[in-house]
């Protein structure tokens, strides 16, 4: 008798002291980005200080959740067995309305309808180990 093994778990976020607030905020339904109070720069991913001006006076700014699809690819071969059930899926560079870029998936739309430049909106979905992941769907 053969059994089909369940796919292994996807890589889950593994917060460091620097990133912990980012992941905690997502569990509260908020996407937050570091903002430097000295020079005003927004930076993603988080660092212990501003890499523009070296100030350590950073605050977390909740962003609008509006974004544009900067670029994408349709992954048709799984990089790891954990993602095999999702094939084909959209891996993307998301440009937040506020400026910073982040990695994400575009979900809830057939892959052949995805185009560069399309407007996106945030949706926060459960991920492994009790974390939540910012994801993106078409903004109508």
């Amino acid at each position, binding site marked *: 008798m053969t059994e089909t093994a369940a796919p292994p778990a996807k890589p889950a976020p*593994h917060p460091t002291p620097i990133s912990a607030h980012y992941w905690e905020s997502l569990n509260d339904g908020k996407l937050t980005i570091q903002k430097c109070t000295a020079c005003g720069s927004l930076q993603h991913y988080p660092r212990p200080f501003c890499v523009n001006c070296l100030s350590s006076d950073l605050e977390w700014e909740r962003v609008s959740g509006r974004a544009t699809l900067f670029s994408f690819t349709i992954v048709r071969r799984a990089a790891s067995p954990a993602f095999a059930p999702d094939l084909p899926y959209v*891996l993307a*560079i998301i440009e937040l309305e506020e400026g910073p870029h982040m990695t994400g998936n575009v979900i809830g739309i057939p892959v052949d309808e995805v185009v560069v430049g399309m407007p996106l909106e945030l949706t926060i979905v459960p991920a492994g180990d009790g974390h939540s992941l910012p994801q993106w769907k078409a903004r109508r």
Partner: protein
Amino acid sequence: MITGTLRGKAAIAGIGELRPAKFMEGATVPSLMLEVARQAMLDAEMEPGDVDGLLLAPPLGGAPLIFPAMMTEYLGLTPNYLDVVDTGGASGASQVWRAAAAIASGMCESVLCLTADLQSPKAFYTRGAPMYGLPASEFDRPYGPMGANSGYALLAQRHMYEYGTTSEQLAKIAVDQRTNACANPMAMFYGKPITLEDVLNSPLIVDPLHLLEIVMPCSGAAAVLVTSAERARRGPRPVVDILGAGEKCSHSGITYSKNLVESPVKYSAARAFEMAGLSPADMDLVSAYDCYTITVLVTLEDAGFCKKGQGGPFVAEHDLTFAGDLPVNTHGGQLSFGQPGLAGGMSHVTEAVRQVRGEANGRQVKDCEFAFVNGNGGILSEQASLIFGRAS
């Protein structure tokens, strides 16, 4: 202000390279490095006692601790200068200018630069950075990136969006390079010509990149022996001078590139050309890192061979074969030669040396006096550019 120059300080005295193979059973990375180091020393008519510098590129699985001393002992060397150079795929080109800089500084005279890697069927899908402690990892890996494949696909897609580049234009690069490989018995895909249709009909792996636009990892090794310009002139080989060099890194993961479609080649190549006192129009050969077709296209643009955004029409209009009007990657490029880890990047250096020496046999570029070599690491992240010239 950066004003230093390496022009004419050092030259390539010897090269060594193995024919890549998918697997090399029984071989080890140190044993492969030893073999190509021997080839390079024999090529230069030098002995271990003549070599006083050693630079190693790490295998993709990571270098062992204190790797240079280990290889020093294994090779019977006593170097004054030893190090590991890790700029990803650019490591080979990076090693060459670091060797030249060390020689120009007077710290050593002859530096062996070694690259080697092995594939294992078991290791192939397990490679990948650990999650914890790497700055960007937890913000990328939960989304299922496919390593370099998806990174370059994101670049290609954006290039198509901004400039109208087409899959046909990208495929042309793979086809011309395969024509070159069919004149190079060392290439893995020797004797296997392909057409545009073959490329476009090969499976999409990560849109818009097809299977035949993606490099094949394999096993192999390459070595370059850099020496002072003066010493090279006392050697047995035609002298290949290092006339210019430049290096730049702007990011690691493609998401965090400030300008996705413009690479740090813009700086590294400009610096190399300025140092050499030459321009792209002077080049007889382009030997540019090609993990994917899009890599070549963006490199040609950012190095100044054509205007930004015009890479698509440019590659369509020019014959990139060894007999063409702009020879590119005459060994087949890694797409058709094979990518033995970081030795893949070094293959662009060794091929340029053969061409400038006039030793490329059935694929010799006519009167090849100057060559542009480019190493590329990560996702268009680290760039190392070199200009080689035939000594008069």
